């Protein structure tokens, strides 16, 4: 590396000499390139000033002594910049280490929380879940029962990033331990509430919507723990209504009971479940209205569910200038005609 510096130093002197004689742009372009190799080789500002002083001394052996002193003064002034530069360098390396560590954690989370979208005759399912940062604080999960029923969980940790993501792993393993058949939505929420209340920091809350779809009866049974309300699209009336559901957020009180509701799903009807990352999308400083979400959904409702959720996500991603503020999860069930 020392050889490199010598080459650049000679180069610097030649370029400067040429520039002093001609004041041409070419020399300036040249010094820009040299400057970049300085940065690449971690040459500190004081060393560059020193290089300049040496070049001057060689070019002007009779340089004014006062001027020489002024250059030494400049060199001293650069020392603190050099120190700060080295500190930034170290911090940048540390940041890269952290970033790659987080990305390993994120891919591990993806594996841990992974769920496969099941195939259910007569039901078209679409789901998209995109984290605002690397780790996702939203969670969705499908459980296909032996009786043909479909369990769907959509959850959101208040907060985002790593703590939220860690919390979600716990929820998933709690749910995995339940016997699939016997559990109703309200029983599942009641149970999870106890898990969260016991194991999670009191400042952290989890909202969840749990639904069970029974294809034989075309019936959706559901309960909500303070979760963002979903929407029901009634095909025959061509209208959306909010899915009514009341219930306390998970982890607040140990003995919470949850209500259970049901909804008949006819041909062409849709169930839309989401997290507040969807409803709290912003257009500039303004929060969007829920009508706007429904309008966009409707606009793409002729598409298969998976394409629909993808298009809706793209719409809001663009609206927010490709910078999500919160984790975004949208799930659509459509009963096929």
């Amino acid at each position: 590396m020392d050889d490199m510096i010598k080459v650049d130093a000679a180069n610097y002197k030649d370029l400067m000499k040429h520039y002093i004689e001609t004041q041409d742009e070419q020399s300036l372009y040249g010094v820009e390139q040299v400057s970049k190799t300085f940065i690449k080789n971690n040459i500190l500002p004081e060393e560059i000033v020193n290089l300049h002083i040496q070049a001057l001394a060689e070019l002007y052996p009779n340089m004014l002594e006062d001027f020489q002193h002024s250059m030494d003064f400049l060199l001293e002034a650069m020392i603190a910049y050099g120190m700060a530069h080295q500190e930034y360098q170290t911090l940048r390396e540390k940041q890269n280490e952290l970033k790659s560590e987080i990305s390993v954690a994120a891919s591990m989370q993806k594996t841990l929380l992974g769920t496969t979208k099941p195939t259910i005759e007569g039901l078209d399912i679409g789901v998209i879940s995109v984290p605002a940062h690397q780790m996702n604080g939203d969670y969705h999960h499908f459980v296909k029962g032996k009786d043909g029923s479909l369990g769907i969980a959509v959850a959101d940790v208040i907060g985002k990033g790593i703590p939220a993501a860690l919390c979600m792993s716990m929820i998933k393993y709690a749910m995995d331990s339940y016997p699939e058949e016997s559990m109703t939505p309200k029983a599942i929420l009641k149970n999870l509430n106890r898990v969260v209340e016991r194991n999670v920091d009191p400042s952290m809350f989890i909202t969840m919507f749990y639904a069970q779809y029974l294809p034989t009866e075309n019936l959706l049974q559901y309960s909500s723990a303070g979760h963002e309300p979903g929407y029901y699209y009634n095909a025959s009336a061509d209208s959306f209504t909010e899915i009514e559901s009341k219930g306390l957020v998970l982890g607040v009180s140990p003995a919470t009971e949850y209500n259970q509701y049901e909804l008949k799903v006819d041909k062409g009807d849709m169930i839309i479940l989401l997290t507040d990352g969807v409803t709290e999308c912003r257009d500039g400083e303004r929060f969007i209205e829920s009508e706007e979400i429904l309008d966009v959904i409707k606009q793409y409702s002729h598409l298969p569910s998976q394409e629909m959720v993808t298009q809706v996500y793209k719409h809001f991603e663009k609206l927010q200038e490709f910078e999500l503020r919160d984790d975004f999860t949208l799930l659509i069930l459509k009963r096929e005609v």
Partner: protein
Amino acid sequence: MNPQSCVNIQKEWDIVGARQLGRDIARKIGFGTVDQARIATAISELARNIYLYAETGQICFEVIDNMDHKGISMVAIDNGPGIDDVSKVMEDGYSTSGGLGAGLPGVKRLMDDFDLQSEAGKGTRIKAVKWVR
């Protein structure tokens, strides 16, 4: 015998005195302008730490002249409050520097060897060495 000279640090003006003495020694040993400036800056940092946190202390310089090695050694000693968590003050961005690259990590970078001993309530001893390249 190696000559050794010390500067007592009590007031801010003493920081300048310590810099001056350290720079003179460095120049005599044969350090270039850039390294002289770095050594002076390291002295500043150590002397300021004494002045700000320990109130009084001392910085001593020593010329090291081995067969193939020439360098300057500086030792800063105080009987101040000491440092509780050494690894923390050696962390970048910690302490008063606030992203100015200063502080003890800065000193460590400016010099070649660095050693710190401290006991809470008793004081701190920092030794730093720079070799002529």
